[in-house]
């Protein structure tokens, strides 16, 4: 049976690992490479690395940095931030990314998703969607790290991204991000129901129960989280144990003779 994935996310902003709240109030919390190594040693299901200042600074992804990460990462690595062309995607995959996350560029040029999918396969294109809740309960997509409204409903946009060739949707609630108050389950459910490709829930995880709800109530196939793993004693491994006890299938790493370097 396919297992539900728990995916730690690392946010990079100008060479540092950062944490923010509601896509704002960023503070630097260290360098990223040691985190990649730790997560790899702990055999997490997957890792996401987002360079949140790349698009805003008008630059592409930092390929050297990604190359350093991937050489220490023996689980799947998704990289996003500043991907604006087929060449950007190709460079990232060459640098060792397994999947490329697109976000801002899709609104201006959705065909980019198709181009990348046709050349490298749909499975390596993750469409990132950042959304805010409106006062009337509807949602609106935002690009450029939450700074630019796109006048688009996230469920409709997710469906479009699937049609253009995305292999997964990474849906993030901007308000919940970094708050540890729980995922926006309505948002996740809306998006999850709209598409037939896997959905990764993002933004707001503060407890194992939150992660469980993203899967059970939100209908997501994977849950990504940052603050909970970086700033609390909670770990991806315990999150999986929590899910397993409630009947959600998760990976159980077996013992092997081989070991992973510290």
């Amino acid at each position, binding site marked *: *049976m*396919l*297992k*539900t*994935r728990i995916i730690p996310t690392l946010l990079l902003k100008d060479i540092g690992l950062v944490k923010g709240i509601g896509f704002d109030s960023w503070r630097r919390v260290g360098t990223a490479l040691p985190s990649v190594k730790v997560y*790899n040693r702990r*055999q997490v*299901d*997957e890792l996401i690395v987002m360079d949140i200042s790349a698009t805003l600074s008008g630059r592409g992804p930092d390929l050297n940095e990604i*190359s350093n990460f*991937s*050489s220490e990462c*023996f*689980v*799947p690595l998704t990289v996003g931030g500043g991907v604006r062309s087929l060449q950007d995607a190709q460079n990232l*995959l*060459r*640098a*060792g*990314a*397994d*999947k490329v996350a697109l976000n801002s560029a899709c609104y201006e040029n959705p065909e980019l998703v198709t181009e990348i999918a*046709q*050349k*490298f*396969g*749909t*499975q*390596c294109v993750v469409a990132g969607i950042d959304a805010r809740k409106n006062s009337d309960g509807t949602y609106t997509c935002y690009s450029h790290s939450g700074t630019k409204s796109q006048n688009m409903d996230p469920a409709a946009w997710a469906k479009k991204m699937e049609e253009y060739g995305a*292999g*997964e949707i990474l849906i993030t609630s901007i308000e919940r991000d970094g708050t540890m108050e729980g995922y926006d389950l309505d948002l996740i459910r809306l998006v999850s129901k709209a598409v*037939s*490709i*896997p959905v990764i829930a993002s933004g707001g995880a503060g407890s194992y129960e939150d992660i469980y709800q993203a899967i059970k109530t939100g209908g997501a*196939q*994977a849950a990504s989280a940052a603050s909970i793993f970086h700033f609390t004693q909670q770990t991806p491994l315990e999150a999986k144990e929590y899910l397993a006890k409630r009947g959600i299938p998760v*990976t*159980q*790493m*077996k013992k*092997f*003779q*081989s*070991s*992973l*370097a510290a």
Partner: protein
Amino acid sequence: MNVLVIDYGMGNLPSVKRAFEECGADVLISGDQGDISKASKLVLPGVGSYAQAMDNIKKSGWFDALQTAVREKSMPLLGICLGMQLLAEEGEEHGHSQGLGFISGNIKKIPSNENIRVPHVGWNEITAKKSDPLLTSIEDGTDFYFVHSYYFNAANENDVLARTPYGAAFPSIVRHGNVWGTQFHPEKSSLPGFQLIRNFLSISQNA
């Protein structure tokens, strides 16, 4: 150098190289068929579309070089993900295209429904159908990392080493003679993946 990772312009080559190195191999990534003679084993990685991959393989001269290396020199070859699918006779992604033809079968799209989302992304378990040196110390139920929309529809059940349930149970490891293929990514499957890579490295030329 004992492992040649074939560069035909597609695939996560550095990841494959790093994982094989971590498992003790001496690895060269190369697009030059002349380098085959320096290697004792071949790895055919692959991420991307079938038609494009086969187009690249034919235009670059790898099609003939691989036929010679595998069929005449009996070199062990491991195909990974798309690289596994290329071992089949035919693919149907973006139209029909001829494969390398080392293992009988064709490549079909995973049928999707409400519970089966495609692509099949994530960790899923394998169940062995036969014993094989590639599966040494790997128990049934071990999870590996998959990411694919198509599967290997093997013509001979005898070529299927393991299956994985996603809707129907599709072949997740195939073998015919000196050619092995894994639908999952051992290089991205943490310790279980390393075990499989070490098993491949331990296989002798005449296994």
